[in-house]
């Protein structure tokens, strides 16, 4: 490769041949956005190219005028300057994509945030062989091995059976995780109404409109009698648990659905009583498996535990380097 098709800049990952940024953290002329989480999808760019779902989600969160120009992408090639790009599913959340960039004869895949396990709320990760693969490393340590999500939901259902007088307050990020938890509950046969923090309503409605059935959802309003939530599931963003909002629930059992719940200090730090290891990111086996599968000559590692994943690549004889992009959180929202 003479000049790299993509290179890191302060705004984000830049493609000189196509004059665009991928998931820029500052306003730019042209942004390609992998998915709707707030640290990847920001308002204020002039033109945004993303999947139809990601554009919808950005409009829900930032208002319809979040960019001057938008274009919906799918798996068809789109030519941008001297490059061509296409979007393929990343399996992370609804609308999430990997972005395939070809410049000259070189193909780079920006994986964005991705996971390999099954998830009924979004399209499954699609493997694209490439020359350079850009991998996230949120859970890039060999201590992260996420158990099957349905087993974790089984724990919540078991607890509902034992702690019938307690409100099960499940912390879940508003976009992706909340809908996945609800869907997992439904798939496990839980058909009682599920109560929502107000900030989740619009995104849940949107998921339902895109064909992700979530069953009966009710707002967790103050009008309900205090013990009306006993033995029920209430889902809210984790930050809401420290606010007066959480006081309306009788004897709450604090649960949290996150990949971080596999590590005890993280569980205790958050005061969680019922940890649910449910992640929308790849765990260590999925990350290393993906790197093997794409067969790339080079791996670039970004946000998370870059050092460990780069080390693993070295041990396998795969060229790898950390990208050191700034502005991404360890888990969005």
């Amino acid at each position, binding site marked *: 490769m003479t000049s790299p098709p993509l290179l890191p800049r302060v705004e984000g990952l830049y493609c000189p041949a196509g004059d665009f940024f991928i998931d820029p953290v500052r306003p730019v002329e042209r942004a390609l956005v992998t998915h709707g989480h707030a640290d990847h999808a920001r308002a204020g760019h002039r033109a945004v190219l993303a999947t139809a779902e990601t554009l919808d989600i950005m409009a829900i969160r930032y208002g319809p005028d979040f960019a001057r120009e938008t274009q919906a992408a799918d798996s068809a090639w789109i030519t941008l300057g001297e490059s061509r790009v296409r979007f393929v599913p990343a399996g992370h959340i609804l609308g999430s994509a990997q972005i395939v960039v070809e410049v000259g004869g070189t193909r780079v895949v920006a994986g964005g945030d991705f996971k390999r396990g099954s998830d009924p709320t979004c399209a499954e990760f699609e493997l694209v062989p490439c020359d350079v693969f850009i991998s996230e490393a949120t859970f890039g340590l060999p*201590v992260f*091995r996420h158990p099957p999500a349905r087993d974790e939901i089984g724990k919540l259902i078991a607890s509902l059976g034992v702690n019938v007088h307690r409100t099960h307050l499940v912390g879940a990020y508003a976009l992706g995780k909340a809908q996945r938890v609800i869907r997992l509950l439904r798939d496990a046969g839980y058909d009682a109404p599920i109560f929502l923090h107000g900030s989740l309503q619009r995104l849940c409605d949107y998921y339902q409109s895109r064909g992700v059935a979530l069953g009966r959802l009710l707002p967790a309003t103050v009008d309900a009698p205090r013990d009306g939530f006993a033995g029920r599931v209430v889902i809210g963003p984790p930050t809401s648990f*420290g606010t007066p909002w959480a006081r309306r629930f009788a004897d*709450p059992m604090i649960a949290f659905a996150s990949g971080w719940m596999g*590590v*005890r*200090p993280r569980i*205790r730090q958050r005061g969680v*009583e019922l940890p649910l290891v449910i992640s929308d990111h790849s765990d260590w086996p999925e990350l290393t498996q993906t790197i093997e599968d794409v067969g790339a000559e080079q791996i670039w590692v970004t946000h998370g535990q870059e050092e*460990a994943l780069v080390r693993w690549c070295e041990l396998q004889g795969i060229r790898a380097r950390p990208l050191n992009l700034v502005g991404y959180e360890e888990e969005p929202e």
Partner: protein
Amino acid sequence: MKAFARLLDQLILTPSRNEKVALVRRYLGTTPDPDRGYALAALTGDLHLPAVKPAVLRALVAERVDEVLFRLSYDYVGDLAETISLIWEAAGASEDLPLSVVVERLTSASRGAAAAVVGDLLDRLDPSSRYALLKLVTGNLRTGFSARLAKVALAEHGGVPVTEIEELWHGLVAPYGALFAWLDGRASKPVNLARGPFRPVMLATPVSESELAALDPAAFAAEWKWDGIRVQVVSDRGVRRLYSRSGDDISAAFPDALDAIEFEGSIDGELLVRHEGGVAPFAALQQRLNRKTVGKATLADYPAFIRAYDLLVDADDDLRHLPFRDRRARLESIITGKSPDRLDLSPLIPFEAWDELATRREAPPSPVIEGVMLKRWDSAYLAGRPKGPWFKWKRDPFVIDAVLMYAQRGHGRRSSFYSDYTFGVWTGEGALTPVGKAYFGFTDEELLQIDRYVRDNTVERFGPVRAVRAEPGHGLVLEVAFEGLNRSRRHKSGVAMRFPRISRLRWDKRPAEADRLEALESLLETTGA
């Protein structure tokens, strides 16, 4: 092993004491023998497995995991057992080995083979069970669940008073087959054949001056309530033991007190230490607690002794059914003439009327007295805390006015409230210095008020902690009640409170009117700490 591992995880994460007890009770009710017996022993600290050193575990994991990847992981997780349990790549599918099989394999391993056995078990267990295994072999479960609570859960499981469990405990060994058979109604109560058994202690209920008015002073004996550790000293045909009031054997930390035993029987008393000729405050005694061995210097500077309150057994005679009057007479005849610097008699306080006793209570002869005990002359020695025969009439707590400095969110049902408070008093330089933390004493309504104050007056946030405005002219004054004061090198202020709680919110006071550190320092002087 999976059930035990899940129990440990739940105990770590459950903030409520009652929920923890319920978890253990459910575990004991649903787990077969002998697994539940070994689990119980693990919780009470009575399961003795060959210890495996952290270095040995590191060597085990180094055979399988790249050193750099292990270091990065350990740096992230921060706990060796947890890191190994998560990073370990098992050769095949995990099995749910019974806890008893794990225990038996570990105990039967020779010294040199322990590491290999642990490695093999790690291969066969799931991650949570690996964590439990590693906590067992490194010797600390860190569940925040005491031996005492484990016995409470066991008593609830069997539907018997916890005192019956405590009485039997020292004659039993894991996995407690006979004990469970009795609790499940399959066999009669096991007989404690061990020498020097513990006998459940009789406790007093609190009483106030107004409640006393309804009682006949002539029916009660009064004695000082000493601020030491309530103990039971037992000597039974060569076996001597010192038990805490919950039946824990604390003999090892107090060999000097054991030396005092020149009788056959069982005495109820207070363990105290002397220093420079007088009875030393509780803090000095605390230095000697939880020690496996005691140094010569400590034995010389802070010798322990026992102040006898009651006699439960005299030689082979169980006296517990006799009235206090008769037991006291027998106690006096036993103590007289025995090495008085090691074992002496708790003196009775003569009085005719309650107000006379009240006057004496206000001016106790020693600062290491925390009130008065009242015992009906006709009371038998009963296990537990019966209401009526014995009362404790405690000295009024100390109170100071302090300023709220930091507030932290609580756990469980209090997770949406700032409910843990750090408060301070003014130093000579005019700054606030923290002197304690309290998280109870207030009503639910007051909690709401403080929480609102904290949210409206936050000046800085550190994770779950908020610093609140605390200036001479603006801040929240808390009246703090506490039982005593110790010198402390760990606290910047140099003092540590015992049992502090919020007794009143002083919205009417300005922070400038709160107490000064000098006031606490002079209290240290008068209480002899």
